[in-house]
Structure formats: structure tokens, C-alpha cells
């Protein structure tokens, strides 16, 4: 039988006590041992592996790690444990399709397989990157909704509301979260796609109270939208996160287990981070009873996931999930460079092409690490969607060769990437129209990628 939310909370309250430090160290050591036991080795020469035996080993190791370690609840300092039988049962009964959106924009998110010819689900937009005003948020979302491949929208996060900087846990955060949903809905209506779902409800809300406030339908949130519930790195949760999951689930929202294991952090190296990525998918399934998954393994130093190691981690863990489960997984791309730089487009091309052939769907794109205010435009997600569609015509081997040619064009700049320009410097703030200079740059890079073997128009 399915585990209820009440049982989940009970396990957090009565599980085996453990210090957080002990749990972190246990996780790191066990992940390292499992990588050895399963013979998982990172191959820098092939960032897009085509070795399904390896992918299956990554899955088995991740499954074992999750079942052996459980999940740490930082609110109670206890470990929530799950048996192998419980996890297998939940995997067997996990939803193999989930519907999002309304009216003519209502679509089903379904699982994909490696080298799947069907296009991925395109969850497009800002990936929660910061914007300084309601006006920029509005014009950006309208532009995202005009991208033909968009199946759903990822909104930016407001840093200010009515000109005042938002502070967490205050009414300003609640107001910011409400405004984000209200403005985004209105912007999508202006674009002629009022039924498009927002799948990152609500980027501006950090605390459980502000998320719960913003999920009120009065402000435009719909249960056919997606709600992100974060997993603390690594394999941890707390009651504020469980509050979010419980409330959103009760209203019928589509919940995502949002997981960003840190390469170089407690997860460790490439092999370990890949298996922790698998384990955290299972945590989303068991603890949040997630309907879908948003994965973004990230580099501890670069805080992006376009480096060679991270491409490998993303691709092998995606193949592991895709080959062994029906979990509806999307991988989020964080790029280091800012808008209107060749590097940003190369990073997107490498990440998106490889993850699409690895058998999952996409969220694109966190530009300039989704860190720098207003450093984003509608061009990056649009370009990502075009790369995604083109990649469905390629094999893993084709994309491996392609990525091997793209990587040398940017990997030495990851430590000090160019930040490019701000939205206001590239786009007309009233209409969202993009500068000719940027469009010409995109055309130039597309031509290069086409010459390298990506069938992009």
C-alpha cells in the first residue's frame, strides 16, 4: 500500500536519532563505497556515455544508497527509513503521465527513453533567476509564452516588490509571491496562451507560509500548475518543506521533487553525484510523493552544470532514471555565461542536446547561474527549445561527438565566464523586442552547430 503523508511525518518524528554531521559523513562514505562496488567510473573523454550497463549500475547503486541511508529530517534530527519493498512498490505505481495546463494548452507529461524521437517536454523561461521589477517579469513571461515549443513556463523571481527589496518570512515575500503568479498569468493571456501552466510555483516564495499564501486560486494559481518542493543537499528535508508538499498535494497541485546534488559537496565526485541524483529522485517519490522531478546536479565551484563532469553526471543519471523507471524527470540547465555571449549558447547546446538524447525532458534555462539580476532574455530558452527539437534526430553517439567539439569552446572560461548584458540592454522593455545584434549572434552560432552536425534550422 502507498505510504500516507501522515506516515511520512510519523517517520520524521520517530525515526532513528542521528547528528546531521554523522549523516553527511555516512552518506559521503557510503556513496564512495558503492561507486567502487558497482564499478562506476567517470569518463571525461565521453561526456555523453552510451553504456546502458553503466546506467543500470548507477540506478542500482542509487537505489541501494537510498534504502540503506534513508532521509534526514533536520527538524527532528532523525532518519526517515524506507524499505526496498516500499520503494519498489512506489516505483511500480508512480504516475506514468501527468497532465498540466488548461484548455488548448493542456498537455500530458510522459516519460521518455534514451534516443527517443519524441520531443521532450519544454519547461521554458527563467528558472527562478532574479529580476528587479514587476515590469521585467511581465514582459519576460509574455515572451516565453510566445515560444512555440513551450509546454510550460518557469517564471523569474522578483527581488523587489513595489520597489522594496523582499525579505523572507515577511509580508513582502507573500506579496512578491502573489504578484509573481498574478503578473505571469496576465502576461500569458496577453501572449494568447492563457492555459499554459506555470511549473515553478512560486519562484519568489522561499518560506512555506508565502508559498501556501500564493497557491490560492484567487491570485491565479491553478492545481494544473506545478509546485517545486526542494530536497536539501543531500537526502535531507525539514518540516517547512513537508508543509509545502502536504498543502500543495492536498489542493491537487502537481508536485516536483526538486533536487540539486552538489558535485564536490557531500555527494563527492562524478560517480557519487550521479548515484545521489538517482537516490534523490527516490526521495522525491517517497517523501514528497512527487508527481514529477526536477534535477539539477551542480558544480561546487562553478555553480553551473555545463562543465564536462556535470554533463556526464547529468547524462548518466538521466539514463539511469529513464531506463529503470517511469518517473517523469526534467533536467534543469544552469549556464555560467550571461546573455548575448557565444559561450551561453555553446553551454546550452551541449547541455540540452545531451540531456534530450539521454531520455528525459528539459527546464531551460538558468542564465548567468540564475544569480545576476536581469541577466536573462527570452532568447536563451527559445534557443534551448530549438536545440532540444533538433537533438531528437540524433543518437547518443552523434551527440557525444558533437559535445566533444562544443566543450573546448567554453570549458576554460567556466571559472570567469562573461556576464554579457542585462535584459534592459538587449530587449525593448515595453515590447520585449530583441536587439538585432543578439539575433545575428544566434544565427552565427546556429550555423556553427549545424556544421558540427546538429540539425538545427
Amino acid at each position, binding site marked *: 500500500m502507498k505510504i500516507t503523508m501522515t506516515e511520512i511525518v510519523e517517520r520524521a518524528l520517530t525515526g532513528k536519532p542521528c547528528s546531521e554531521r554523522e549523516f553527511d559523513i555516512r552518506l559521503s562514505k557510503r556513496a564512495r563505497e558503492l561507486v567502487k562496488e558497482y564499478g562506476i567510473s567517470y569518463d571525461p573523454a565521453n561526456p555523453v556515455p552510451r553504456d546502458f550497463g553503466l546506467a543500470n549500475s548507477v540506478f542500482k547503486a542509487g537505489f541501494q544508497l537510498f534504502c540503506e541511508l534513508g532521509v534526514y529530517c*533536520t527538524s527532528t534530527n532523525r532518519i526517515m527509513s524506507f524499505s526496498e519493498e516500499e520503494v519498489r512498490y512506489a516505483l511500480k505505481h508512480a504516475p506514468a503521465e501527468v497532465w498540466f495546463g488548461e484548455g488548448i494548452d493542456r498537455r500530458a507529461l510522459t516519460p521518455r527513453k534514451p534516443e527517443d524521437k519524441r520531443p521532450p517536454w519544454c519547461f521554458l523561461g527563467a528558472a527562478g533567476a532574479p529580476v528587479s521589477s514587476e515590469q521585467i517579469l511581465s514582459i519576460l513571461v509574455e515572451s516565453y509564452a510566445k515560444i512555440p515549443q513551450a509546454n510550460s513556463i518557469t517564471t523569474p523571481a522578483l*527581488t523587489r516588490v513595489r520597489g522594496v527589496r523582499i525579505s523572507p518570512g515577511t509580508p513582502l515575500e507573500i506579496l512578491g509571491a502573489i504578484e509573481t503568479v498574478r503578473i505571469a498569468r496576465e502576461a500569458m493571456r496577453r501572449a494568447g496562451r492563457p492555459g499554459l501552466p506555470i511549473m515553478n510555483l512560486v519562484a519568489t516564495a*522561499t518560506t512555506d507560509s508565502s508559498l501556501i499564501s500564493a497557491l490560492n486560486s484567487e491570485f491565479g494559481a491553478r492545481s494544473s500548475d506545478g509546485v517545486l518542493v526542494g530536497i536539501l543537499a543531500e537526502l535531507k528535508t525539514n518540516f517547512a518543506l513537508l508543509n509545502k508538499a502536504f498543502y500543495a498535494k492536498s489542493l491537487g497541485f502537481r508536485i516536483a521533487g526538486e533536487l540539486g546534488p552538489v558535485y*564536490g559537496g557531500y555527494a563527492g565526485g562524478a560517480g557519487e553525484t550521479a548515484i545521489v541524483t538517482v537516490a534523490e529522485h527516490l526521495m522525491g517519490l517517497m517523501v514528497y510523493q512527487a508527481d514529477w522531478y526536477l534535477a539539477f546536479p551542480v558544480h561546487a565551484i562553478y555553480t553551473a552544470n555545463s562543465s564536462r563532469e556535470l554533463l556526464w553526471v547529468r547524462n548518466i543519471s538521466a539514463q539511469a532514471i529513464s531506463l529503470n523507471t517511469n518517473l517523469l524527470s526534467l533536467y534543469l540547465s544552469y549556464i555560467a555565461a550571461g546573455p548575448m555571449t557565444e559561450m551561453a549558447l555553446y553551454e546550452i547546446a551541449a547541455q540540452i542536446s545531451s540531456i534530450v538524447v539521454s531520455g528525459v525532458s528539459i527546464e531551460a534555462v538558468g542564465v548567468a547561474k540564475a544569480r545576476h539580476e536581469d541577466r536573462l532574455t527570452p532568447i536563451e530558452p527559445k534557443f534551448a527549445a530549438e536545440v532540444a527539437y533538433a537533438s531528437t534526430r540524433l543518437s547518443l553517439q552523434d551527440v557525444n561527438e558533437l559535445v566533444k567539439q562544443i566543450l573546448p569552446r567554453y570549458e576554460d572560461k567556466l571559472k570567469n565566464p562573461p556576464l554579457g548584458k542585462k535584459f534592459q540592454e538587449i530587449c525593448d522593455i515595453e515590447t520585449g523586442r530583441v536587439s538585432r545584434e543578439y539575433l545575428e549572434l544566434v544565427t552565427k552560432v546556429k550555423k556553427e552547430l549545424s556544421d558540427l552536425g546538429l540539425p538545427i534550422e
Partner: protein
Amino acid sequence: MRKMLEEKYFAELREAIIAGDVQRARECAEKIVKEGLDPLKAIEEAIQPAAKIVGEKFEKLEIFLVDLIMSADAMKAAAEVLTSAIKAKRPLKPVGKVVIATVQGDIHDIGKNIVAALLVANGFEVYDLGVDVPALKIIEKAEEVGADVIALSALMTSTMRGQKDVIDMLKAMSIRDKYIVVVGGGATTAEWAREIGADGWAETAPEGVSLIRRLIEEKRGVKP
């Protein structure tokens, strides 16, 4: 003979620290004291170079966070033995005292933990207050321990204001100049640090440690 003994034990201590072997590092430090070797020299020639190597290895991700933590623990264990031996003769001036926390509203701790571990590894006295820490609690701790530096982490754009709140509160309490305040974390930028009046910002943990070291040097006018 004494020189050879020093070289042997200092090399052993360096190796134990780099390997993150707490037990071996402590035992090695005890042997150094027992043999009557200079404990201050052991700190300077074994612990500090080992800390540098560990920091460099982490920066290149040749080692990972758990290795860094184990090395920091090994360093701490050895340093405790050596400093108590020094204290018996003369007081040892700390490299610097740092109060570190993830600000109120933010529950993310990996970045902060990496900085804390690297600071310990570099001989700083670190008071890690954890996550979601209110501004006043951070300041009270800094006052209590006589900190040199307040280091503030925030991952989310929606929580970075917590860093500004600490600086604003320090100003309101008329003690802003007592502390070096540095900020970092996923959402933050150099521009943000300037906007809120922080003394410095670093993108990565190793850069953060170098920044803190430099700011202390500048404030004291001497090398820490």
C-alpha cells in the same frame, strides 16, 4: 638528529592531515610535544602547509567536502595538542575569529559549511551558527566571542536581504566598524555586496578564505 626527528614527525603530521586521519594527526602532535620539539614550529611547518595543500586540492576538486571536513578535524585535533603545549609557555595569538551563518529565512548550508571547514583548515577560530539565523543572534555571538569577521551566506535571491539586515543592525547598534563583514552564497554578487555595504564578497569558498585573510591583514596592518 633533532632536525631529522622534526622532519620525520612534521612530514607525518602533514600526511595525516591531508589524509583526514584525526587519530593519527593527534598522536603525531602528541609525539612532537613528548619529544620536546617546538610546537609553534610544528604549526607553522606542518599544519599550515598541510592546510594550504588541502585548500588547493579542494579548489581543483581533487578532494571533496567530506575529505575537507576530515582534514579540518585532523588539523583541529593536532592544533589543540600543540597549542596547549604552547600555552604552557606563552599565549598564541589566533589567526582570526570568524562567526559564520546562513541568514534568517535561508536553510541552505553546503556553501557555508565548505567555507567554515576551509577556515578551520586555515587556522581560524570558527563559530558556525548554522542556518536560518536571525541577525541579532549573529551579532550577539560576534560580541560574545570578540569576532574579527562576520561571514554571511544566502543561497536564494529571496533571502539575501538577510545579509543586509545584519549590516543594518550593526549600524543601528553603532558597532559596524568593529567587524569585517563578508557575504557570499549562490544568489549574491559583488554588486550586491557593494549595495549593502559589506566589506567583501567572494564567489567560491577558497576565494572567501583568501578574502577574509586579506581583509584581516588590511585591518590589522599586519600579516595574520
